[in-house]
Structure formats: C-alpha cells, structure tokens
C-alpha cells in the first residue's frame, strides 16, 4: 500500500554518448524525462522534428503495408487473440531485422505499390461496368451507335428521356414536317426513363427529321463507338476479365510477401521506438560538448540506476529530493491482490503524493461487496475458472487486461463463497433438476441463510457492512491527519464524528423502530443508554463548536459547525445506499430461478431435458452478464461515492517513464534495475 517516493535524477554527460545513453534509458524505462527545470544560456535544444516525423512516417508506412497484407492474406487469429499480448522476440533476431531494414522498407513500399495497383484496377473495373450499363439499352442495335448512314440514307440514333410509343413519334413528326418521302423509325429499347430509337431517312431529310425528333426531347448519345453495341460489350467484358486476372496476379504477389509480415511488424516498432527517442532528444538541453537530462525516478531505483550509468559512461549523476510542495508523478506499488484494483482506482484518479494509496483496503471491500451482489456459487465458479484459464493461457496479455482478469478472478471466488453461504447455485438449479428430472427433492441448503426468505436480515447486515466500510474510510482520513501531524484536525474531523455517530447508533439499537425492523431485541443496561446520549450530545456539541474553526467570526463559525452537523443526513444516505447489496443479490437469485423454471416447463422426458439445457445455457449467460455488469457498476459506485467521499480526493498524475512503447513485439531484455 504505497505511493512510491520519487527523486529527481539528473545526468550530465558527453555529447558523443548521447544516443547510447538515451537508448539505455529507453530500454530501462524507469525515468520520466522532465527537462523543464534546467536553465542556462549556453544550452540549446536540438531540432529533431523532421527526423522524428520521418521515423513516424516510416513506421506508419509499415503499418499500412501490414494492413494491405492482412486484407489479402488474413492472419489466422482466434476470438481470444486480442488477449495474447505482444510477442517476445530474441535480441539477435531483432538485430538481424535492423540490419535488414533497407530491404524491409523496400518490401513495405512494394506491398503498398501492389495494393495501390489493385485499388486502381478495381476503380477501372467500376468504370468499365458503368460503361456496360449505359450500353445495355443499345444492345439490340445491329450497327454502331456512331453510324450515320449509307451513301443515300441517313441514320439518326439517339434517345428520348421518357417512354414513348412508335405511334406517338410518328404523330409528332407528322405534326412538324408533314409526310416525309421515306422514313423508318425503330424503337431499340424502351423503359420508363428513356426510349432509344433509330430513325432512317433520306439524307436530305435528315436535318428536318432530327429537328422534329428534338421536339420530343430527342438527344444523341454521349457514348460513341465504332463498334456494334454487342461487340463493344464483349470487348469491355474482356477488358474487365483481363483486369480481374491482373488483380488476382497482384494479390498473389502480395500473398507472397506475407513471409515478411513478422519482420514488418518489428520494423514498424523499430521506427516507432526511434521516433520516441528523437522526441526526447529534442527536449534535452545541450551545450557544445555535453548534454543534460533530468527527470523523475522512483527513490528505490535511483541508486542502482546511477551505478549502472556510471559504470558504462563518463557522466555526472545528481540525485535530489523533490521539494514537498512540488507534485510528482505517481507510481503505485502493491502486491498481486491489492494491485488488482489499481485499474479501478486509476479510473477515479490516482492518489496525489501526500495521500494514502487506498488500494489495499479497497481491494478487500471491492471483492467482498462484488461477491455479495452477485452471490451465486455457479456464476462465481464460472467467473473464477474462466479468468484463471485465460490468465494461464495468455501469460503475455497486456498489463491492464491482466489486472482486470485477476480482479474478476478474485471477485469470482468471493461470489462462489457468498453463493455457498446463501445456497444459490445457478439459482435453484439443483432443486429444479432433481425435482423435475429425478423426482426427488434435493435442496441445496444455505450455509448461512437464504436471503429471499429473510430479506430484512440481509438488509440489516448490508447496512452493517456499509457502516464498517464508511468507518474505515473515516479511519483512513484520521491516519492521513496523524501522518501529517495535524492532531487538531484529527480530533475535530475524525474523533468527534466517531463519538457522535457511535452515540447515535447506540441510541438507535434499543429503540422500538430497530426492534421491529430487525426482530432483534437489544437491551442495554441503563448506564450504556446514558453513555450513548452523552456521546451523541458531546459529539454534536464538539462538531458545532469546532467544525468552523477556520473562521475567526464566531457567528460564522457556529453556522459552519451547524452545517457540518447537518452532514449526519449524508451519513444516513450513505449507509442506506448499501441496501443495493441486498437488492442486487436478490435480483441475481430470483432471475436465475425464473430461468430454471422456464426451462423446466418442457416437462421431464428427453425433449424436456433438451429444452431445459438450451434455456439453462442461454438464460444463465444472459442473467450472469447483466448481473455482472450491475455488480461491477455498483461496487465501483460504493467505492467511488460512499467510501472515497469520506477521505479520498485523488488527482495524481501517472508516472510515465521514457521507454519503448511498441505495438507488436517486445524485445527480450535482461533485467538490470
């Protein structure tokens, strides 16, 4: 349970070692570079922007090439492959790739060029297909569209933008030019949008006829060709086929490049890492011969880092404590168990440098409450086993995924335990199955009690667990005051509340209201009752007088005190909020029972058993998913709102060390620090 102390770690070294030292630091990954504190007139920063951008572009090029490869030769991946994490590769293999990087760059460019070729061919095919489409109405024409007649006759080919019949055309023409000597009009094709026609007449009448047709909305086709439409279509189809062939061939070439896939991934990462290095390089101040680098490093690692650097290079290392008022980046250190809630903590906000890391206490309650809300032995078992198998199967999964799965595994175990205590195993599956299919009455007896039979009892316990949770939150606040030696604050803001609330609770316990709620008749000796009243009054008086102590004005002080005393309603609502433990626990159990009952409606026989199995699987997956979500959300809420509300602010900045952030692979490194 701790926030790691940080120190400022500064290096001054020779410029010739610059790259080697940066690479060393990058591979160690324990220094967060922050050079903003270094000032000096002779110091200059190097402009590395163009280099960095070049590396980024190269890395992006490899990524794009990989995308092209994935499109034509998909990698065989399973559904769970996203859990696999980055592959670990040997250093010498990586080095071999680096030596080979020119060839890989060329390979990436080739893949991109091939990909572009395919894209262009596909665009060409699209174009040809549109051409074929516009040609379709003309297929019945047995002369080329551009044909304009023989020596004596003229042929006018074109379309009218609406559906017209032959009769209408003749009537229209007759209306305009009267009777022509010789004329023949054929309709090539006709649909609602256009009518394609070919008109034949004597050459001298051609102009007159065309003008007449124009009044109908006649126009010449835009597409002209010296081929008969059917022949032209055949030619276009041939072109498409040729392009298809070419695409296939190109695809084959791309597939042949798939051997380079792994190395291209490393290649992309290599340039990504180099770009990151150049980004840092651009921030460090340099003089003529030397350069300076400074940053945060965990106290416990700083000495060994100093030793390691001093052994290898000529440099001066300076380790300083960071002044109290400066905020440092935050790195948490916790064991496996407590560390599993770090993700949940982080999404609320990391502790600041002066706060306590609440992970340890939080992990206990988180897992406890989660189990209580889901509380079904079957679901818990499924969760725990599934997470365990995934963790074993994919040891290299990303860190965030690893902690989440650990958390859910622990929560699964807790759910299993609560399920046994409350006698729930996939709801009442044991009872239903034994009753419907075997004709016996086996009931999985709860070890503690069944919540549905005595909800009041669980409600009281839920509120009790909540009260303990909140009191511990208050205790952590007290611990923080003591650590910072704020004894007066500790007394006024923590002890007085304990006294006040303790007195109120002891007054409540023997009261008629509590007896009727809990069916527990608690009788205190009169001395305790008097003590309770005394505590409540003393606590209230203390809070009234002391809470506003920051204010000099006595009236304002009392007003602030009264306002703080009003917070007792906040305590009440906080405690009542824990009733969700009961509600969500009941929801899981009852809906699981509904599923079982629905499944058993098919009766006993084989047919009934099949229905039962199907309904059981689908129903319980649904119920488990929805209640897992509920348990997760509401456990988070209890931690964030009720528990953290008592003592925790958060707002720390995460420690982001300078290290190689890769996308695909990690290079095996021996641990040095």
């Amino acid at each position, binding site marked *: 349970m701790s926030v790691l102390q940080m120190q400022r770690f500064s290096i001054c070294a020779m410029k010739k070692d610059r790259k080697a030292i940066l690479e060393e630091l990058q591979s160690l990954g324990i220094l967060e570079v922050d050079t903003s504190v270094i000032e000096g007139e002779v110091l200059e920063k190097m402009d590395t922007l163009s280099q960095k951008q070049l590396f980024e572009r190269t890395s992006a090029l490899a990524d794009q090439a990989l995308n092209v490869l994935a499109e034509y030769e998909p990698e065989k991946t399973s559904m769970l492959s996203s859990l696999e994490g980055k592959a670990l590769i040997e250093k010498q293999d990586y080095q071999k790739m680096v030596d080979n990087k020119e060839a890989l760059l060329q390979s990436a460019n080739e893949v991109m060029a091939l990909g572009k070729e395919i894209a262009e061919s596909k665009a060409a095919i699209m174009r040809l297909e549109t051409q074929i489409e516009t040609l379709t109405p003309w297929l019945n024409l047995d002369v080329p569209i551009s044909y304009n007649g023989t020596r004596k006759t003229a042929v006018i080919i074109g379309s009218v933008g609406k559906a017209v019949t032959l009769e209408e055309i003749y009537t229209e023409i007759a209306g305009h030019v009267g009777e022509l000597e010789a004329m023949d009009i054929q309709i090539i094709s006709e649909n609602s949008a256009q009518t394609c026609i070919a008109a034949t007449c004597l050459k001298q009448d051609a102009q007159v006829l065309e003008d007449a047709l124009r009044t109908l909305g006649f126009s010449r086709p835009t597409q002209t060709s010296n081929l008969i439409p059917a022949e032209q279509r055949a030619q276009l189809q041939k072109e498409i086929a040729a392009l298809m062939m070419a695409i296939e061939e190109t695809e084959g070439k791309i597939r042949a490049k798939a051997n380079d896939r792994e190395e291209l991934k490393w290649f992309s990462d290599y340039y990504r890492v180099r770009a990151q290095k150049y980004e840092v390089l651009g921030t460090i101040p340099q003089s003529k011969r030397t350069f300076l680098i400074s940053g945060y490093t965990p106290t416990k690692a700083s000495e060994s880092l100093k030793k390691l650097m001093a052994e290898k290079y000529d440099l001066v290392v300076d380790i300083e404590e960071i002044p109290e008022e400066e905020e440092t980046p935050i790195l948490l250190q916790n064991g496996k168990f407590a560390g599993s809630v770090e993700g949940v903590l982080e*999404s609320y906000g990391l502790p600041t440098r002066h706060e306590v890391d609440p992970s340890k206490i939080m992990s206990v309650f988180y897992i406890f409450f989660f189990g209580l809300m889901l509380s079904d032995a079957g679901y818990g078992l499924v969760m725990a086993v599934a997470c365990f198998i995934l963790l074993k199967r994919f040891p290299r999964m990303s860190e965030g995924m690893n902690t989440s799965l650990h958390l859910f595994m622990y929560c699964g175990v807790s759910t299993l335990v609560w399920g046994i205590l409350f006698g729930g195993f996939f709801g009442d599956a044991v009872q239903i199955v034994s009753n419907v299919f075997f004709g016996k009455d086996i009931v999985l007896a709860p070890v503690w009690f069944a919540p549905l039979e005595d*909800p009041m009892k669980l409600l009281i316990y839920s509120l009790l667990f909540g009260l303990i949770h909140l009191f511990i939150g208050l205790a952590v606040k007290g611990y923080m005051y003591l650590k910072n030696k704020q004894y007066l604050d500790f007394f006024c803001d923590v002890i007085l509340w304990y006294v006040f609330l303790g007195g109120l609770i002891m007054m409540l316990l023997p009261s008629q209201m509590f007896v009727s709620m809990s069916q527990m008749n608690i009788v205190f000796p009169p001395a305790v009752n008097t003590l309770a009243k005394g505590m409540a009054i003393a606590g209230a008086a203390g809070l009234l007088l002391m809470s506003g102590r920051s204010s000099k004005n006595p009236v304002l002080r009392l007003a602030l005190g009264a306002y703080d005393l009003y917070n007792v309603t906040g305590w009440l609502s906080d405690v009542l909020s824990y*009733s*969700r433990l009961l*509600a969500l626990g009941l*929801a899981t159990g*009852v809906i699981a029972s509904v599923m079982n009952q629905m499944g058993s409606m098919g009766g006993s026989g084989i047919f009934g058993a099949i229905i039962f199995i199907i309904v059981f699987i689908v129903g319980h997956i649904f119920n488990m998913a929805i209640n897992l979500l509920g348990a997760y*959300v509401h456990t988070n809420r209890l931690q964030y*709102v009720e528990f953290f509300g008592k003592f925790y602010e958060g707002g720390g900045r995460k420690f982001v060390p300078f290290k190689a952030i890769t996308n695909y692979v990690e290079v095996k490194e021996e641990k040095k620090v």
Partner: protein
Amino acid sequence: MNGIVWALLGAALAAILAGCGSAYGVGAAGQAASGVVTEDPSKFAKVLVIQLLPGTQGIYGLLVAFITLSKIGLLGGAAADLTLSTGLMIFAACLPIGIVGLVSAMHQGKTAVAAIGIVAKKPDQFGKAMLFPAMVETYAILALLVSILAVNAIPV
C-alpha cells in the same frame, strides 16, 4: 372484484412500467452508442456497458412481478384465495418499482446518452462516465427494496 385480480394487476404493472422505462432508456442510449461506434468501433465495449445501465429497472420490475406471482400462487398451479384488501395491498406494494422504475429508467437513459458523450471524447474517463447513470439507479434500487420488503411481508 376478487383480490387476486388486483394482485395480478400489480405484478403486471411492475413488469410493464419498469420494462417500458428500461426500453426507452436503453433505446435512447443505444442510439447515442451507435453514433460513437460508427466513428470509432474500438469503443464498442465501453459504450455497450453504459447503454445497458438503464436496463436494470426492467429486471427489477420482472423481479417484483415474479416474487408477487409466486406469492399469490399463480406460478405453482393453484392460485391463492385472496381477499380484496390483501389484493389491494399487494397491488400497492408493486407500485413503487413500477412507477419509480419507469421514471428513473427514462432519466437514466438520458444520463447514459450524456455519459456516452464523455466516452466518445475522453475514453480514459470511462470510470467517471459510468458513475453518473449509476447515481440515478439508486432510486430504482430503493423502490425495489420497498416493493420486495412489502410484498414479502404481506400475509397471504
């Protein structure tokens, strides 16, 4: 009118009202979630979680309906012979989750839409985004508790 009609009406209302509210809430959140996923499919899991948050009221309604049905014996075959006043009592006991479920699910749906907006712009603030809709749910949970405790306590 026989008591059992009132009791059944209560169970039906619990499921109907809470279910309608959840359908509205999940529907509204689903529209927002779809918009986010068209822009960035990698946020699917996160927005799905938030979309489902207003769905719980429907489950709570189902829960109370089921407890009521099993209480009045409609699930086990022989329906209990209820007096009018017992029936009305069960009806009243079902109302909290029905009405609060309806209203809270609709509001939770609207809050979920806004929370999906947070995830769209700042995916790392998922934990906080999830919290806002969860705050609304508190009242549905309180209503559920009252309904369960009341239905359970009515002697049949």
